[in-house]
């Protein structure tokens, strides 16, 4: 506050008469470049929208036919189902991995680190293919003592429906990313918060649930929603396990109706835009709720 030690005289204020200074209006700097850029962008955007609406290439009539066809809605439902299940399971897995990663137990820490490293390294598509081909590697899954006798045996082919395989694949992958998001969120809560909780003698579970988690969520939610948007689009790979999501149905229908390839792609685009917009809206709402209490 007292860093500018120069007296007023030194910077020349006394050189002009005082009343003139008061009367002088400050003219803001003009930005002609901004106006030119605006004009260019508006014209280009108008051109694009006009082209989109009038170019017969897009076949908007067929777009209308396909937009809410049962086959598309079936695919959309699969997309939503797989996304929702994987988002929840992935987050739960991520919390467990993050806590393991932050624990004092070196074995848990290492296992968690290896898991995260592995699943962030392997492309989702490879995970899905390996899972799908699981039955080629292991014909049955058995439930029982590790390395010991098994009580139940499942024929993997019957156990693993396409939906289950897709959900497991996406969740395994999602958990690795969620773990990093959750870990970052927990680490973003300052040491002082944990020390204050400890000094007050707050029980450990209460510390995590009421002090650390609510603050960590502020960092976790935006990052996880981004992750979720990636997940929605990641579901378009599930056709590799013979599950047809929105994009899978679009591809199938495109081959049966080759004349409608473009409108079908536009239908998929429109639905993905709608889904991600809804998620962003939810993000905005949740973040606003979590911000309650911050500096108003």
């Amino acid at each position: 506050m007292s860093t500018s030690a120069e007296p007023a005289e030194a910077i020349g204020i006394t050189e002009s008469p005082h009343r003139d200074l008061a009367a002088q209006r400050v003219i803001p700097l003009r930005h002609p470049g901004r106006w030119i850029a605006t004009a260019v962008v508006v014209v280009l955007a108008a051109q694009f929208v006009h082209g989109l609406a009038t170019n017969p290439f897009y076949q908007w009539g067929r777009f209308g036919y396909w937009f809410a066809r049962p086959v598309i809605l079936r695919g959309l439902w699969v997309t939503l189902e797989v996304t929702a299940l994987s988002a929840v399971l992935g987050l739960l897995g991520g919390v467990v991995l993050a806590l393991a990663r932050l624990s004092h137990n070196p074995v848990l820490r290492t296992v968690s680190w290896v898991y995260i490293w592995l699943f962030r390294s392997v492309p989702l598509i490879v995970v899905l293919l390996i899972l799908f081909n699981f039955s080629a590697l292991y014909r049955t899954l058995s439930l029982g003592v590790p390395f010991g006798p098994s009580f139940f045996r499942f024929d993997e082919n019957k156990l693993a429906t396409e939906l289950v395989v897709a959900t497991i694949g996406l969740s395994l992958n999602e958990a690795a990313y969620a773990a990093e998001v959750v870990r970052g969120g927990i680490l973003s809560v300052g040491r002082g918060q944990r020390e204050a909780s400890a000094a007050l003698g707050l029980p450990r579970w209460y510390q995590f649930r009421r002090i650390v988690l609510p603050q960590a969520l502020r960092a976790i939610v935006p990052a996880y929603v981004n992750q979720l948007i990636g997940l929605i689009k990641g579901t378009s790979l599930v056709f590799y396990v013979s599950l047809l999501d929105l994009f899978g149905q679009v591809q199938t229908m495109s081959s049966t109706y080759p004349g409608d390839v473009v409108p079908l792609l536009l239908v998929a685009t429109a639905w993905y835009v709608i889904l991600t917009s809804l998620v962003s809206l939810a993000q905005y709402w949740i973040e606003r709720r979590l911000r309650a209490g911050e500096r108003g």
Partner: protein
Amino acid sequence: MSTKLLRLAVPVLAAGLLASACSSGASGTKTDSAPAAAGTTVVRVGSLSNGAATEADITVAQQDALRAELPAAIRSGGTLKVAVGALPAGFPPLAFVGSDQKTLTGSEPDLARLVAAVLGLKPTFDNATWDNMFVGIDSGKDAVGFANITDTEQRKQKYDFASYREDNLGFETLKSSTWSFTGDYHALAGKTVAVASGTNQEKILLEWQSKLRTEGKDITIKYYPDSNAVLLALTSGKIDIYLGPNPGVAYQVTQTSKSPNPTRIAGEYSGAGETLQGLIGATTKKDSGLAKPIADAVNYLIQNGDYGKWLAAWNLSTEAVKTSQVNPPGLPASNS
């Protein structure tokens, strides 16, 4: 289901079970087989074809002599598990999701149904991606693939084939293009051509390319994952020509006729090529013992005329074979 029950009532049940076939693949199972007289099945072929076929009912009598050739496990199981590799994009009219927008149809599943009826089995279908179809056969999840699979020497190292159809190839261009093919590969010089990798049409194209190169000319060859991507490349001018199985090309031409970018057939060529004999075969795991009963069943259908009815329903009569063979000579293993 109980083996004992099946043995007691096979003739009746075989027909009855067909009618209540349960869905297992993503696209489900077609259930257009009606119960008929004991030991016979009415197989409806060409349904939901979106204009690619003419529907026909074919009545098939179970052949106990052929059924006796089946591996015991399949005979007692009563089910023919068929793999189709038509995900996510199908290849109409051979295997694709039909005009009800949910049922798997096409010439290949229809033949599988006919063969199953001859053998007194209930067909079920697993529709998967092309690669996963083979894994399904490898792992025993599926017994046989009916999906326009070309018999090659390389594949024969792992699979047995029962051939059932020949390939004809077609050249597809935009309707606005003036290019055409009359049998001389020189017409392709300087063109950009799309072809599916690992197919006999690719092999033919590569041969032409190397011949043209010795003459100082060239063909640019592009690969796309499926027919949708090929069609987009064609309409956007990224490629000039698509060389593919003629039935698929013909289907695309019909289907795009009313779209903003219609296509046309700019020429045909024998899938047998100059030196190659391309055959499509039902594909089973090597030494599973299933290829022979299937080949015999196809031969039975050829002899009694049902095979001809099936091909006619799908407008594929030009691709008929005279007999079905087990592991006929296929495309050589290497391209060099």
